[in-house]
Structures are given as C-alpha cells and as structure tokens.
C-alpha cells in the first residue's frame, strides 16, 4: 500500500525528516509514536503534499503510484487521508456542504457520478450518530467554534464519508474524553478491512488497546529509531523515550 524509502523532508530550509523508511501493507495498522518535535506531523504533511514541506530525497510509492508526483487533491482522490492534529476552522463554509463538495470532487475526478443530497445526508447523519455528535454540527461552519474533541471527531466523520485507502491519523486521540476515545476507535475499527491501511500517530498506548496495531514505530529526530510489535508501546508507556538516547550513544 505504502512504501517510503529514505525520505528526507525540509521545512523552511531545515531538514526535519532525515532518511525515513516505512512500509505499510494492505489492511495493516501501524502506530507511530515519538517525542514532541520528532517529525511525526511533518511526515503526515509531507505525505499529504502540503506546500512548504519539501521532499529533498527519497521516494514514496502509494498504491502503485509515485505519490510525490501528485498534487494535494490528487493524493486525496488516490485514497490518502490525513486527519490533522489541529483541524482548521473555516468560517462561512457549511460543514455538510463542505463534506459533500469534497466527496463529489473526488468522485468527479474518478469519473463517478455525484452523490444525491438526500442519500448523502442520511449516511452522514449515521456517521455522526455513531460518534455521538450533535447533528447541529452539520449546519455550522467547518470546525468553527467546535470544541477540541468535536474537531477531532469531525475528522473521523470526514474519513468515514471519504472512505480512503490509507488514513493517517495525527494525534486524533489527544484531547478526547474516555468515551469519545472509544467511539473514535470504534469508528476506525469499522473501516478496517484487508484493503485499507492506517497510520496512527499517538502519544498514548491507551488508544492502541482499542486499535490493535500490526506494528509500532518510534520516530526520533526524523528517523524510525525502533520498530516492534504492540509490546513496544507498552515499553514506551513504562520507560518513556530515554532508551533512545542510550541506544544512539
């Protein structure tokens, strides 16, 4: 599904990702952990194609295509989804309208028919309900005045509507209460199947109790410093990242 080789990413002229390799197979869920500032969000932005995140070396193959050749929206249409660590507020743009416009833009790019608005609203309402979100949020402007947790859940609603092949969730669990965390995890688990992959960036092993990861990686100073199975997450929870220093020394 995703094959990253020797990826280097510079932001504002400064190298942040410094030779990263990562392979995520179809149907797999990988967790990425690592200290603040280690480059986790940078990795997500670089994969999504954000301006200012300059790939200076390496390659990324996504679902058979060269991801780095694609524009931001082409990556989305190809099936890449990034749930932002800090979802953006968009005043004046209706949430439901935005969701439908996004879905239709992707469908149109793929030569599919646009969705009809009644059927669309019905599905969206179901997703909202599953995440215990107020329907009124659909009528509000995108993320404007949403609580922190509502913003995070709104990302999951978008993911559920857009049905990506690979979803990167950047700290979607941070700031969620315990019940919301479970609902979000369930939302992810409902989407899991053999054709869909996830990269879950998180600081907490708690989320990984609900979302059983196939692999856990530790990102440190722009590289994968350690990979393992889910027991690695437990070890980090107990010991913190101190062992990275000793390993490098």
């Amino acid at each position, binding site marked *: 599904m995703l094959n990253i080789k020797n990826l280097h990413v510079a932001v504002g002229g400064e190298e942040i990702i410094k030779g990263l390799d990562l392979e995520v197979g179809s149907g797999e869920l990988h967790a990425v952990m690592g200290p603040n500032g280690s480059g986790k969000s940078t990795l997500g932005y670089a994969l999504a194609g954000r301006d200012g995140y300059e790939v200076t070396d390496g390659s990324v193959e996504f679902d058979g295509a060269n991801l780095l050749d694609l524009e931001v929206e082409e990556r*989305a249409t190809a099936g890449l989804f990034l749930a932002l660590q800090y*979802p953006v507020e968009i005043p004046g743009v209706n949430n439901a309208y935005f969701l439908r416009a996004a879905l239709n833009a992707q469908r149109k790019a793929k030569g599919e028919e646009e969705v009809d608005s009644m059927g669309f609203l019905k599905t969206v309402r179901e997703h909202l309900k599953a995440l215990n979100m107020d329907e009124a949020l659909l009528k509000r402007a995108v993320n404007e005045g949403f609580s922190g947790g509502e913003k995070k859940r709104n990302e999951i609603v*978008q993911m559920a509507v857009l049905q990506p092949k690979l979803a990167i969730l950047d700290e979607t669990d941070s700031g969620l209460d315990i019940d919301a965390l479970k609902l979000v995890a369930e939302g992810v688990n409902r989407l899991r199947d053999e054709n869909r992959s996830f990269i879950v960036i998180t600081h907490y092993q708690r989320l990984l109790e609900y979302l059983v990861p196939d692999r856990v990686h530790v990102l440190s100073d722009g590289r994968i410093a350690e990979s393992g199975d889910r027991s690695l997450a437990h070890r980090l929870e107990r010991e913190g990242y101190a062992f990275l220093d000793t390993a490098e020394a």
Partner: protein
Amino acid sequence: MSALIEKLLPEADVSDDGSFGALRRKAQKVLMQHGFPQRKTENWKYLPLGLLEKRTFSTAGPLTGPVPAPPEFPFETGIVHMHNGLLDPQRCRLPRGVAITGMLPSDIDASKLDDTSPADAFAWLNLARFDQGWKLRVEGRVEQPLAIVTSCDEDFEAAIHPRLKVELAEGAALTLLEVQHSEAAGLINGVLDLELAPKSSLVHLIDRSFGETALIQRTTARVSDAAEYRAFVLDGGGRLTRQDLMAELDAAGASASISGVAALGGRALVDYHTAIEHLLGRTSSRENFRILADDQAVGVFNGRIHIVPGADDSHSEMNTGNLLLSEDARINTKPELEIHAEDVTASHGATIGQLDDDARFYLRSRGLTDGQAIALLKYGFAAAVFDGMDAGALKEWMLERLEACL
C-alpha cells in the same frame, strides 16, 4: 475639471421645460461655480474621474430599436425596466400596492445638497440634466418584490441621469431589487430617494456589475418613526463605480442596516461611501461590508456613522472585512465614527487579510481542487454578509449571484 463640465454640460442653456426650470438653473449655477470633484475634494480622492474626461458622451436619444428583455428571476416579481436611462413602458409590471407617476418639483428636495463645493456635483448634474424622473408610491405590505432593472445597449455611450423616488406610506412594506448590468462605455449618474413613513419597512437589494460603464449613484433613505431600512448589496465590479448610500434616521425607533459585498477583479474600481445619520435618540444601525479584490482591482469602503448631539441611547455597529487576492489589488477601508451623544454604543471591527493557506491546504487535502478551495473560501468570507436576509427564494438567489461573482 472644466473638461468634464464641457463634456457633461455641453451648453450653458438649461432647457426650460417649465416646472423644473428653477431647480435646473440652480444646479447649473452650482456646477459652473464649483465644477466637479478633484482628487483633493473631501471623499473623492480615490475616484479617478480623469477616466470620464477621456470619454466622449453622446446625447441619449429616445428608445427606438427593440428593447432587450429584462433578466428572468426564479421568483415572482414586479418589474420596472429602465433601458438606456428610459422607462420601457411595455415591460412595466407593478405588483399590487405600487403605483408609478412622473416626478413633480415638489418631490425633489435639494436643500441638503452642498452648494458650496464640488462634493455633490454629480447630484447637481443629475438635477440639471435628468430626462425622466419617476416616483413609486407603495401602500400596504406588498408581497411581491419589485425589480428595477437597469440595462444599456451594447454601443451605448451617452451620459444618462436617471432619477427615481420610492415613497413607502405608513405601515407599508416592500422588497426593492435593483438589478444593474451594463458593459458599454456610457455614464449612469443616478439619484434614488427612498422615503420611509412611520412603521414602514424596505428591504433594498442591489445586484450590480458593470464593464466599461461608469456608475455614479447617490441613494438616500429617510427613515422615520419605527421604520426599518435594510440594504444588501452585491457588487461584481465595474470600471468606475461610485455609490453614495445614506440613511437618515429621523425619528425614534428608526433603524437601518447596510450589508454589502464587493467582489472585484480585472481593472475594477469600486468606491462605496456610506453614511448613517442618527438624528434622534433611540435609533439603531448596523453596517457590514466586505471587499474581495483580485488582479488590479481597487475597492474602497468609507463607512460613516454620525450620532448627533442629543441622539442619546442610540446604537450602531460596523464591521468591515477585506480579502486581498493579488499583489496588485488595493483595498481602502475607512470607518468614521462620529459620536456626539450620550448612552450610545458604537462598535467597529475590521480585518484585512489574505486567503488562509492552512484552510486552503485543508480543503485540498479532502479532494477539492485549488480553484474550488479558493472559491469556497471566498464564498465563506463573503456569504456571511447576507446572513441577515430572511431565508427564502430571494436570499438563495442573492447567494447564487454571489457564487457567480467569485
């Protein structure tokens, strides 16, 4: 600016058509004395009137050829169609409760026009040169909106001076829709007077966009006791557009709001000067104006709120927002709050900005093209101005028009 005088007032003789003779002579005299505004004239510094000097204006003739049909509306509406500055009687369709008559000298109040400087020159010019003046009298609550459609022939190069007065009787209600689109290199120098009797209510929508046509429009709403004036403007740009929009709150309980969007591109130059005069206490007003300027467009908004001494317990709120979409575009926004009364609340908020890159990336990361993302952000920025419109077909139409402008 004597060049303009020669262009717009070719001969010193004022056709003495009897009834308006005295007014016209006075207007002519003021113009000859003070001329047209110059860059240094207060409130006119952004308007390059030199553009008009370069043009030759023919004299408007009577309507001879076939008059094109006014645009279709997705709702039932009355229509008054002004083509080349003249009323097309064939297409006049008035809703129940509205009557049209010719204007009389007693319908014109020139006492408030400045005759000591060039500031009101175009209003004087209108008075000196208007061909037809019409008056609409509105009684009762009129259900259907009334569209005043302005259009010109493709090769229309005259200067025209349309003059209209709309009088709402006590308790009357109307939605007036000014729809103005024209491309040719003429000049429309219009005056619109709105009189709102006690307890009347006027919703005034303006949908305009011009090509080379220059528009200089002066609109004054006199709002009395417990009457309400609400204006919603959508300006899609024009080579030279100047709108003065004044609301005079004459009596307790009067209220006015002006909401507008100017979505400008190309070489558009659009200058809105609004003024709300709180002449008595317990009056309220609200202004919300947004300008989006792309390419080499220039947008000007000058919003004046004046609360005179003694107009206590009045409230006003002004909000402006600007979006600069290119490096060559310019926006000048100036709020002028002048408050001389007590127990008054007056607030002002202004923002000027560019498109938010975070938001643009966010939208694209969900599959929207960059063009779609930009259009949606512009729409989101502008559409909020029309939040105050009652939900319904008119609001939807206005939002569709907005989308088309962006």
